[in-house]
């Protein structure tokens, strides 16, 4: 029944305004603010490279700016912060299992790396001595 009333209301423009969800009507100002903020964050992440920061400082800054930008896009531009919790959880929780994949793959790549270092590089180093 609930679904049916939604459908019957949808074609009427005035009714659509009354619905709390479909509107997603927010003042234009917020989009300009987020737009400006995204420009600023992009500029900052570009400066990380331009100024040549290295090591821990470099990747912590890259990750910080990246997650801030991603958060702003998803929550405001994609309206996620105004959606119902059911949709929010259904979309935002599943990607968390990627952490497991990244964890496994980083262990695996570490293993591959050291295997290559020990066997391949040792082989190339030994050769000149023998000849």
């Amino acid at each position, binding site marked *: 029944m*609930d679904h049916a009333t939604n459908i019957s209301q949808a074609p009427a423009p005035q009714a659509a305004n009354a619905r709390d969800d479909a509107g997603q009507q927010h003042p234009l100002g917020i989009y300009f603010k987020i737009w400006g903020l995204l420009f600023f964050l992009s500029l900052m992440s570009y400066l990380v490279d331009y100024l040549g920061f290295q090591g821990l400082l470099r990747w912590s800054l890259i*990750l910080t700016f990246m997650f801030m930008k991603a958060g702003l896009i998803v929550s405001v531009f994609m309206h996620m912060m105004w959606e119902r919790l059911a949709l929010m959880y259904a*979309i935002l929780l599943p990607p968390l299992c990627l952490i497991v994949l990244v964890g496994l793959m980083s262990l695996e*790549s570490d293993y591959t790396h050291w295997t290559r270092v020990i066997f391949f590089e040792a082989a190339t180093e030994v050769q000149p001595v023998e000849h």
Partner: protein
Amino acid sequence: MSQTTLTQQDHLVTAPNSLEGLVSDWSTDQEVFKKVQWGKAMMWIFLLSDTFIFSCFLTSYMTVRASTTVPWPNPSEVFALTLFGQNVPLILIAIMTFVLISSSGTMAMAVNFGYRRNRKMTAALMYATALLGLMFVSMQAFEWTKLISEGARPWANPWGAPQFGATFFMITGFHGLHVTIGVIYLTIIATRVLNGVYDRNGKYEVVEIAGLYWHFVDLVWVFIFAFFYLW
């Protein structure tokens, strides 16, 4: 309304294992995402699956980059351009990033004007978004041409680890494909907006759904920019 409910109930009772019963089970009047248009929920679910595809690409990039013993090419130098006699690191990628963020901004405004039932502004902003997307793809085509002419191949390159080419062409190529599809998608929807299709049927959420796809393309670029170009 009560009549359709009755027939659905009938299917449930009489032939639950027939094709009709299967369709009826899946289409009975139930919803999880209440007050969310089905098109929007489906677009979100599609984007979730796309998230996993791009994550697989980026994770495999992490794996090959971390496991190679040959030094990884420095993206800051590989993607540098000579402007006005000066070597500016990563400048093309920075411009591409700003273009894509601007397109996300115009798209967000288009959605807003759509819900205000402003037909012309919505269409104009969507065309602007598509145009910025086209600029992005053109710059990417330029970048690919430049790199290929310098000797970058999926199996080798003059700067270091051969895996660089494979991941570069795969990741940016797949993202560029998404942008290209988005440009076509937005152009179609913008033309329908201009023709007043959504004024007649009242379904301006179509603009928001197209917007979700476009913002996602921008979102993926945020991660590619951070992991591939800056790292």
